């Protein structure tokens, strides 16, 4: 954590609680301001900036992460709700230098243009990759319907996710 980012903060002791949580397998215990959202904590405190602030209103999906394995808009999760939770962000997908198959699939199928929505889409697709079920294109689309891409690279995003699922099945 970069201490300079919080050193100046105006004293908000009344609102702060020490909270324990796990991000990408690493345990944190932080004194955090209860007014902050999980997205702010990830971006400003942990400097994990893969999740983006596209609207801060839960309308665009650019901040999508996993909370105990469930897809959430991290801008809609208040700090108080992450106590003892297991959080996974896009930064936690690749292992050492090896990309996750979903990440590879997005590269192979040109699943991103400006890339601002890409981490959110990949995290929204993650449970599909983990699922044992065989999914139709329509089901893939439904699972990603909460994420906006203003470049409208939707065709390549569908291709990317379908490709990742196919690779997994064939393995």
């Amino acid at each position, binding site marked *: 954590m*970069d201490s*300079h*980012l919080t050193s*100046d*903060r*105006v004293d908000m002791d009344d609102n702060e609680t020490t909270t324990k949580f796990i991000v990408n397998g690493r345990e944190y215990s932080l004194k955090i301001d209860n*007014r902050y959202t999980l997205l702010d904590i990830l*971006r*400003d405190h942990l*400097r*994990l*900036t*893969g*999740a*983006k*602030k*596209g*609207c*801060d*209103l839960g*309308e*665009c999906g*650019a901040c999508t992460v996993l909370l105990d394995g469930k897809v959430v808009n991290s801008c809609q999760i208040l700090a108080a709700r992450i106590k003892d939770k297991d959080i996974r*962000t*896009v*930064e936690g*997908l*690749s292992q050492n230098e090896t*990309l996750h198959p979903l*990440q590879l699939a*997005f*590269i*192979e199928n*040109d*699943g*991103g*243009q*400006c*890339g*601002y*929505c*890409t*981490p959110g889409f*990949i995290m929204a697709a993650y449970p599909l990759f983990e699922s044992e079920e065989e999914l139709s294109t329509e089901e893939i*689309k*439904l699972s*990603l*319907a909460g*994420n*906006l*891409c*203003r*470049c*409208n*690279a*939707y*065709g*390549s*995003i*569908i291709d990317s996710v379908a490709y990742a699922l196919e690779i997994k099945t064939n393995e």
Partner: protein
Amino acid sequence: MSEQSTHTPAVGTSYIRTDLEGKVLGTAEYTADIALPNMLHARVLRSPHPHANILGIEIGSATKLDGVFDVLTPFNVPEGKVAPDVPILDSRVRFVGDEVAVVAAVDIDQAKAAIDLIDVCYEVLPFSTNVHDSLNSASFPIHSEGNLVNGGPLIESRGSIKEGFDQADYVVEDSFTTPDHHPASLEPRAALASWDGTRLTVWKPSRGIHADKNILASALGLSPNNIAVVGPAMGAGYGSKDETRTSVMAALLSIRTGRPVKLELDREEEFLAGRRRHSTYTEIKMGLKKDGTITAVHAKTIMDTGAYLSSGPGVVRRAGQGILYLYKCANVKYEGQLVYTNTPTAGSYRALGAPQGHFALESLSDKASEILNMDPLEFRFKNHVGPEGQPGERTTPRNQIIDTQPVEGGVPFSSNELRQCLKLGAEAIGWDRRDYIENAAGPIRRGIGMSMFIYRGGPGGQSNAEISLDQDGLFTLNVGFMDVGEGSSTVVIQMAADTLGIPPAMVRINGGHTDKTPESPMTAGSTLTFSAGHAAMQAAKDLKDAIINASLKLIGLGDSEGLYLTPNGVKSKCGESISFLDIVHNAGPIKTLASVTPGSKDYIVNSFGAHFAEIEVDTETGHIEIIKYIAVHDSGRIINPRLAEGQVRGGVSQMMGFTFLEDMEIDPHSGVALNASFLEHKSPTIMEYPEIEVIFADSIDPIGPFGAKSLGEPPCIAPAPTIANALYHATGVRINDLPLTPDSVLLAMKNLL
């Protein structure tokens, strides 16, 4: 020669986008992701009034608040300008959301708290939220020059429309409107500025770092040499992300406080203080002979530029180009008016005015073909502009480059495969069956429609590129343009690599920093493949010569004849070779800089295309479902098919928002934007994404780099008229006002009964 061709060309292959890995890993850095030590956070106070004079601002309580470092107001900022009609801050506010004051504080919460403590005394002025009210002579002027920009319309014409209409057997006319269409890029505007006492560094989403540097210099009264602009990854902008106060305000706060300052707009602010596509009202008229020949085209467009001018003059001009040039016709006239209103500012947005102009023109063409009792496709085959260009006399002097938006006749195109596009699209959609579609009983009606377009083909301003063979035996392409997500860096690498005769993986790209790159045009007007491509090719050619010359001595040959580059180094016909590493170790790194102004003195360089759609209309709900969508483009040679296809599919889907959904609504009584959020400003999601088949015409442009022409914006031009024409075919209802919402479809059907 045969030995030299052992290199596998990269041009024409789907080489993987060079910057995608960082984007999937989440490590690609966007402006808002960057943090500096001791950084302050800024927040803007915005006007609640659509039009008002600021008589005074009380900032005492705000500045006394803990952690507040500075407050900018119209009364304490320097006199510089961000744009000709936009001071750094102004004592007149012109739309709800206009900047009034800016606070810099230790964190965003303190900045917001300080904003609440600022007391502004406004003198509220009369306002107008639409062009018709603004043009009323009794209307209050929004700028000192009045509400009609330049006091009159832009007029472009060829031949005499009076003669043209006199020759006509029929005249067909109509009027059309298009909505305030917001790009709403997912990344809101942001800027981070850092002043070190002598030099300013600004990080911002940018489509032209060198142009942004000059804007900052002129606004702040600094020498451009004392400014560096850095363009991190950009969450897109589609042309819209410039000309705003954001970076200038952050820079000024940093200079005044001596600390780095970050200003991030929130989503609502991005809607209000960003830039939207100009809404338009167009009256258009076409003269026709009985045999279908077009004798005259005349259109008048009124565009709403909102509170400020931005790139309005360019947009209003481009809206006329289809009207002036898509159909072979001796007598054409376009008049474009640009009007101020007290609404958020309109500016550049992918394809500028072309979608608006083509919506009117291509809807009217379908009407014309109906009057002639002619198939709409046959009407286009008969009248589309051909490779020979327009009738008339060339007016550009022979020694000058032909404009990519010409009015004159007598100049041929460098390439024009519009006819091929029409044929390929008709085949792919199955146009032959159009007259025989049978609708089953029930509410669903099926229809097929099409439209075509013309657009500038890529030549832009002067473009520079620098390329080097480095110490590690690899190459670096040093360029000042910005890849804003369209993939220009990837295609430019492909072109440079092929010119050198080496694999693209051996070429790195370095960009995004004004100190480290030569000047380049903005990412605008679909120019990069063409302009930056030519510059990179020229630099690569020069580098190749320089490398061969350097290796002559090293190999011990007296003549460069027969030397060529391979992935391993320089080789001679006789089998001598030297590796790139050995070359740089002996001769040092080699660097070349090329400067080109691409274009042609003999030909118009334009891109073309035709789109076709088959749709189903539910006559009970007004819902339109796209069954099949075919986009055929003549963009010359395609450098990277996968990226090109992505541009077309994305562009078409983006314009489904314009066609069906998106309209930024301004309350006429208060000037307040009613839907400045993603929830209320509905955009296409993955659920609305239709299957889009992309076809590239077989075309190689003799002027373009590797035969390529423009592609970034062209996909956005034809979707709306294509769907509107299909709707008419399906139902007999022609809707002249976008977007084609279920409500408007139902209402139009009701009126038909």
